[in-house]
């Protein structure tokens, strides 16, 4: 690895000497520091390094050495994917793209000094900072639950060990037991995610524990792809799933992790597994940097630059940008617009107009896939949806199978686009 990196830097240095210099000698290369190695950060770092031909010094800070995607983790819960297939290493970003990958936590940002401090004690300087930290949870949003309760009642809403824990708990459910989910209020990561998860848990239970029940406690009136999911639950898992919306107290819930109880509008329910997906906010570093307004970090729709600091770009779930859902696809799309803008600002390369897109696939049952998507363009106020589509109820099995296969292709595509 060290050898590869030296070779890369040497080559890049030679290219720099030959190319016309855009910056005065002595300043060194412009530094871009990317915090967070998910769909936003990894993609942005990769495109910056790939397209700048060594003209930028790109550093990526990400705490995990192997990144387990949150997207597709529901398929693991349903038994359609191996856990290992969700894991991705940063090796290529370092060896093939020359990105300095640092496995550490970013704990603070000094925007005047343009530095970031890491939990390990280092301080890194930047010319441009990219924050792509994903989500954190809003404290107290589900009474009775906090991070100390996440073993008894997992959120499994960040990829990794929590996903494995939830699967183990589902597999250990007693015959005829109850799986409960406390669904999150808007806005949150991956709008169809909780409902795809219900589908995958239902598939597992139908196969392994057919008398078990699923209880969804939901503060929202409506949810993403609702018609498609409800049609699928009726067709594949009739009688298994009960959803309690706000009309029946779904917005008034408390959990008791020690007793494994869910209290809905005062009524106590004993459950065997409880998946609590709390309300969400931008990853903590955004607030630490003073870049949030409420729970999220507002950005300029044409570049993803923070509304509060033009030297900082904020990608993905953490950003408040307008109409795009918080999804890996969106973060990946935003990362490319930001990388193009950052390169333009730092190296004078061509800047092209921003355009964004998103598609979210969900699996309801084996080979029964659905999708929703939209394309977006920046307006002065926000990133605005310009057109959209959604799978239809009553589609034939062949189309649903093709849609599922497409989602497998997308997973291979986006992870290659993120990690090289």
């Amino acid at each position, binding site marked *: 690895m060290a050898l590869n990196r030296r070779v890369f830097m040497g080559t890049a240095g030679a290219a720099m000497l030959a190319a016309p210099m855009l910056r005065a000698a002595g300043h060194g290369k412009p530094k871009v520091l990317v915090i967070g190695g998910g769909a936003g950060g990894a993609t942005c770092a990769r*495109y910056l390094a790939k*397209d700048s031909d060594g003209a930028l010094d790109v550093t990526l800070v990400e705490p995990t050495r192997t990144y387990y995607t949150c997207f597709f983790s529901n398929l693991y819960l349903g038994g359609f994917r191996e856990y290992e297939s969700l894991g991705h290493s940063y090796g290529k970003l370092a060896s093939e793209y020359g990105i300095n990958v640092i496995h550490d936590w970013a704990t603070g940002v000094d925007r005047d000094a343009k530095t970031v401090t890491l939990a390990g004690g280092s301080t890194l300087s930047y010319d441009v900072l990219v924050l792509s930290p994903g989500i954190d949870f809003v404290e107290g949003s589900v009474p009775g639950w906090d991070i100390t309760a996440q073993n008894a009642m997992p959120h499994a809403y960040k990829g990794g060990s929590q996903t494995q824990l939830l699967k183990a708990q589902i597999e250990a459910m007693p015959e005829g037991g109850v799986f409960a989910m406390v669904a999150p209020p808007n806005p949150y990561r991956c709008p169809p995610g909780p409902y795809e998860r219900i589908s995958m848990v239902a598939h597992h239970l139908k196969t392994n524990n057919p008398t078990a029940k699923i209880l969804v406690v939901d503060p929202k009136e409506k949810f993403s792809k609702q018609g498609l999911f409800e049609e699928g639950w009726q067709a594949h898992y009739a009688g298994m799933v009960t959803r309690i919306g706000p009309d029946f107290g779904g917005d008034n819930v408390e959990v008791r992790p020690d007793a494994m109880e869910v209290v809905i509008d005062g009524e106590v329910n004993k459950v065997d597994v409880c998946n609590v997906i709390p309300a969400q906010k931008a990853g903590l570093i955004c607030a630490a940097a003073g870049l949030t307004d409420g729970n999220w970090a507002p950005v300029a729709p044409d570049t993803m630059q923070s509304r509060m600091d033009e030297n900082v770009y904020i990608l993905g779930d953490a950003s408040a940008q307008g109409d795009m859902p918080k999804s890996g*696809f969106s973060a*990946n*799309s935003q990362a*490319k617009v930001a990388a*193009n803008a950052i390169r333009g600002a730092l190296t004078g390369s*061509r800047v*092209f107009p921003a*355009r964004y*897109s998103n*598609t979210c696939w969900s699996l309801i049952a084996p080979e029964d896939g659905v*999708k929703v*998507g*939209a*394309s977006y*363009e920046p307006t002065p106020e926000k990133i605005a949806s*310009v*057109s*959209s*589509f959604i799978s239809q109820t009553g589609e034939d099995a062949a189309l649903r199978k093709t849609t*599922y*296969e*497409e*989602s*497998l*292709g*997308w997973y*291979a*595509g*986006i992870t*290659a*686009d993120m990690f090289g």
Partner: protein
Amino acid sequence: MRPAVLLAALLAVSLGLIGPGRAAAEAVAFGDAEAGAEVFLWCSGCHEIGPDAQDSVGPHLNGLFGRRAGAHEGYDYSESLARMGADGLVWDLETLDAYIEVPQSLVSGTRMSFPGIEDQQERNDLLAFLRRYSDSPANIPEAPPTALHVEVALPEEVLALVGDPEYGEYLASECLTCHQKDGSAQGIPSITKWPERNFVVAMHAYRQQLRPHPVMQMVAARLSDEEIAALAAYFKTLD
């Protein structure tokens, strides 16, 4: 229904069961080339065959039997297929049958975006049809090439647009969330190294909603003629 056509010694040769000097009279049950012509309609979007057949999205298929995989000059194959050819894969009845059944299982990184043909009889028929366009015993017949079907009639000035590959590279970043740059195709087809004309025609077909896929219709809807040309120029040159 379909009477099996007997073709000389093909299977036996392909399996290496008999050596040089084999008798041409040895016959093996094979497929019906006429029925295979119908099956070939699935292939004809990307492959031409017959007199004047040219390389298109895929290579032309004249003289396929006995050809080393990934070695037809002038066509830019996926790395995987080229490697398989270098490793010794030769197209014969057996290898083609396996490839057509599930392309990715024989050549995992192929850019041929085709799920495969499950039905053995259909594969036999297709192989009998393809066999006609290889050397003896069947010479290339006097028939029109099969893939000159025009999907969308585009004005010459649209087809003549010269794309800006740098802009194309930026626009392509939207495509690459799903379509893999190296041409791997699992569930989502490869669009790498397509001839520009095919790429342009396909995107216009989506933009005009002649092709049905909702994601592609949406993507194409906001692309100008120049942007489609830019994308075509970029994907043509990909390594």
